[in-house]
């Protein structure tokens, strides 16, 4: 499926979705509240079948967070990037670990490093940091005088 | 002809001339004790070095080559290091059992040495139930291993000990049955009788196919009984770090290590005695000329040669095969080896009754 078809199909599922131009893959920005429903539809709608979640990450834009989900279909070989803007003070988004199992670890990683809380996640704990670690290391305002080396 | 038998006899005669009979027994006991301990130490050193050299050869390495000529003193250096090390006892361990276990294991290994015939007329104790004694005493070593695993208060040790318990108890059956099938042929449990019965040929040649089957089963079973790869589940380095002796260090660890190698020597010696004629040279029926030539090789060399060939075979297994899983290990014993060896025993009995063997 080419970019235009994919764009049309997703507009059909979620009319409020806005698309980015000039990106390598179809990139859609959505409201975090709509993510859970959309995710289920992306995974199961015929013709979309985005079954392979290969990257989950977050970017700290100092004013807000952007969650990114890189999805691809092992059947149709099209790729979709979903972006969701989160409030920086209360970053909350629904988990998709029940749709793509790999998200369980990836979301724990994002929680650990950014402090984004995933509602409905079965086991939301620190993954890399110790359990009593304070702060969220990959946020831009994170300071650690001992462990961080400024170059 | 120069032989160990003559030496022992001349010592015995000399002692009888100079001392009264009670003293003779005492002095001879001391000599035997010292020789047994020396043999232990030497066996440990030689076998560890041999294992390291064999494994190095199979793994395209050189092996130890720094201490002494060709690395021959490497194990001495290692033993010294282990002896100097602090023997730690973990805090939560059952101290009494923890410290007792290695001595129990090594004590059992020492006891089994008694009835083994090292050369013609060179045997510590020619007991009339020799083979029964060996299989009875050797099963005691599992108690030492269970004790070590349990008392360490370590989960890996516990798992290793339980595995070892299940394994040794099961494999003892087929080892016992294959020994039994040879007893059926010899008609005696006395080691010297068993060796003498192979005067005109070793049992592995005389006993037809059932003897070969017994031999194969015996080798498999004793490899498992001594916890050697591919049956080294009790230690299972990649699974249980070191299994039942995870918590041991220093000399106590060295004792386990030594016991392992002495056990290998003992089981191979038993295998050599039962199937390959012990110290008996290679005799073929009534080929007197051939038999005479063979007699010129000293009996101790024959015995050691056979034993060390079997030891090499076990080392070869260890450095070639992957490890079995615990359920596969028990399946192999209970579903395959045990029925086969039972049937084999029947077959052997038939052969013995009908006199079909040579």
């Amino acid at each position: 499926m080419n970019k235009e078809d994919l764009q049309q199909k997703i507009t059909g599922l979620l009319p409020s979705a806005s698309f980015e131009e000039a990106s390598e893959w179809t990139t859609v920005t959505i409201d975090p509240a709509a993510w859970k429903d959309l995710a289920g539809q992306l995974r199961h709608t015929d013709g979309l079948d985005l079954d392979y979640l290969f990257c989950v990450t977050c970017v700290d834009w100092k004013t807000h967070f952007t969650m990114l989900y890189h999805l691809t279909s092992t059947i149709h070989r099209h790729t979709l990037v979903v972006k969701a803007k989160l409030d920086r003070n209360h970053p909350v988004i629904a988990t998709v670990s029940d749709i793509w199992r790999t998200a369980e670890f990836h979301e724990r990683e994002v929680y650990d490093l950014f402090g984004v809380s995933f509602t409905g996640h079965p086991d939301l704990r620190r993954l890399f940091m110790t359990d009593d670690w304070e702060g969220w290391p990959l946020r831009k305002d994170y300071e650690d005088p001992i462990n961080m080396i400024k170059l | 002809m120069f032989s160990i038998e003559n030496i022992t006899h001349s010592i015995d005669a000399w002692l009888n001339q100079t001392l009264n009979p009670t003293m003779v027994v005492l002095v001879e006991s001391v000599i035997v004790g010292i020789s047994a301990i020396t043999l232990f130490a030497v066996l440990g050193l030689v076998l560890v070095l041999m294992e390291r050299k064999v494994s190095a050869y199979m793994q395209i390495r050189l092996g130890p080559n720094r201490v002494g000529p060709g690395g021959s003193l490497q194990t001495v250096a290692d033993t010294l290091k282990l002896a100097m090390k602090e023997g730690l006892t973990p805090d939560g361990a059952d101290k009494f059992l923890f410290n007792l276990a290695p001595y129990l294991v090594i004590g059992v290994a020492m006891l089994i040495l008694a009835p083994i015939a090292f050369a013609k007329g060179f045997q510590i104790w020619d007991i009339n139930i020799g083979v029964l004694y060996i299989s009875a005493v050797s099963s005691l070593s599992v108690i030492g291993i269970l004790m070590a695993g349990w008392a360490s208060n370590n989960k890996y040790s516990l798992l290793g000990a339980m595995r070892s318990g299940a394994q040794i108890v099961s494999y003892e059956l087929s080892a016992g049955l294959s020994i039994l099938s040879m007893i059926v042929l010899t008609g005696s449990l006395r080691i010297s009788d068993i060796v003498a019965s192979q005067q005109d040929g070793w049992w592995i040649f005389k006993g037809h196919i059932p003897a070969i089957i017994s031999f194969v089963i015996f080798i498999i079973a004793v490899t498992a009984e001594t916890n050697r790869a591919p049956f080294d589940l009790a230690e299972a380095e990649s699974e249980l770090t070191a299994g039942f002796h995870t918590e041991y260090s220093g000399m106590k660890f060295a004792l386990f290590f030594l016991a392992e190698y002495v056990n290998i020597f003992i089981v191979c010696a038993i295998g050599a005695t039962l199937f390959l004629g012990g110290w008996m040279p290679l005799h073929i029926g009534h080929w007197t000329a051939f038999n005479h030539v063979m007699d010129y090789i000293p009996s101790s060399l024959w015995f050691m040669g056979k034993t060390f060939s079997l030891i090499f075979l076990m080392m070869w297994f260890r450095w070639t095969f992957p490890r079995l899983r615990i359920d596969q290990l028990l399946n192999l014993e209970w579903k395959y080896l045990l029925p086969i060896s039972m049937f084999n025993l029947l077959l052997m009995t038939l052969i013995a009754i009908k006199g079909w063997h040579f």
Partner: protein
Amino acid sequence: MLEEISTTEQGDLVVNLGPQHPSTHGVLHLVITLNGETIKKVEPHLGYIHRSIEKMCESLSYRQFIYVTSRMDYLSSHINNHGCALCVEKGLQIEVPPRAKVIRVLMDELTRLASHQLWWGAMAMDVGALTPFFHAFREREAINDIMEETCGARLTMNYMVPGGVMIDLHPNFQRRTKEFIAFFRSKLAEYDELVTDNVIFKSRMEGVGYLSYADAISYGCSGPTARASGVSCDIRKLYPYEVYGDLSFEEPIGTGGDCYARYGVRMQEMRQSLSIIEQLIDNIPEGEFQAKTKAVLKLPKGEFYSRVETARGEFGVYIVSEGGMTPYRIKFRSPGFSNLSALDHMARGHKIGDLVAIMGTLDLVIPDIDR
């Protein structure tokens, strides 16, 4: 004594496998819940070697950050560097000279071979055969020597730069690589004799750690782990980069989904890598080995994602640039991380020995998971 051994209410035994354990190949910590010898649950605890490379890269220039990635998956450091270089080139729209492209692919495939050799030895060691490890290292040594001659290093080569490779190939490279191919082909047959066809090895591997087609996709598995379950996911085939599109090679796909299938896929991959090297070794084009680039690289504002196939699976580099000298945010999608998440699913109901075998066939490299 029994009370002192910590058990849960149901009478399960909880064992900490790692962080120091002979078969975790690094500092992986698995908390396994056992019922006797049977595994009820495996819970990976990560972070013992977490260095936050992503944060580190935010303060490094586009030329510098590539070399930090060598320290992630140290066994396929070339391919990691390659992925990063590709991403920077994508942002700057640099056209890499044909010679550099071929050199990069050659180096990638040699790295893949070296990585698979180490995996083969380590995995055999996990199932209890100690000898193959040394045999694998003999062959790996030849690759390391080739690498050393050209790149100056044996493990973290740091040979890729944005726009090409750092220096030209050593004059001996072609001769030695050809010698190596001939040598290694004969040794591959030995590998099969020693391990692949061994009865004990087969029984340890077959039917163990089954991962279905759907689960492999759902868990985001990639590389040989996913291919053994029948998922076609070779980035070299699906999204060809450099000269992979012009080469003829096969993507080995397994059907079993068990440990033996994963083993078989990797063994096939080694043969495919050899054939790729053979196709290229005599056809290295003449010319520049590096494109002309500015001294200070500044990526335009935007987001760039590149994917490469490492020895373990799909390695992704995601760069967010604000137009400055350093990346605003970098995310590395490491194959081991996703593959590890399927471990619990695969190991449940098996024995401890199987867990070790499964970990062996997953080919986990811990710094790659922890980053």
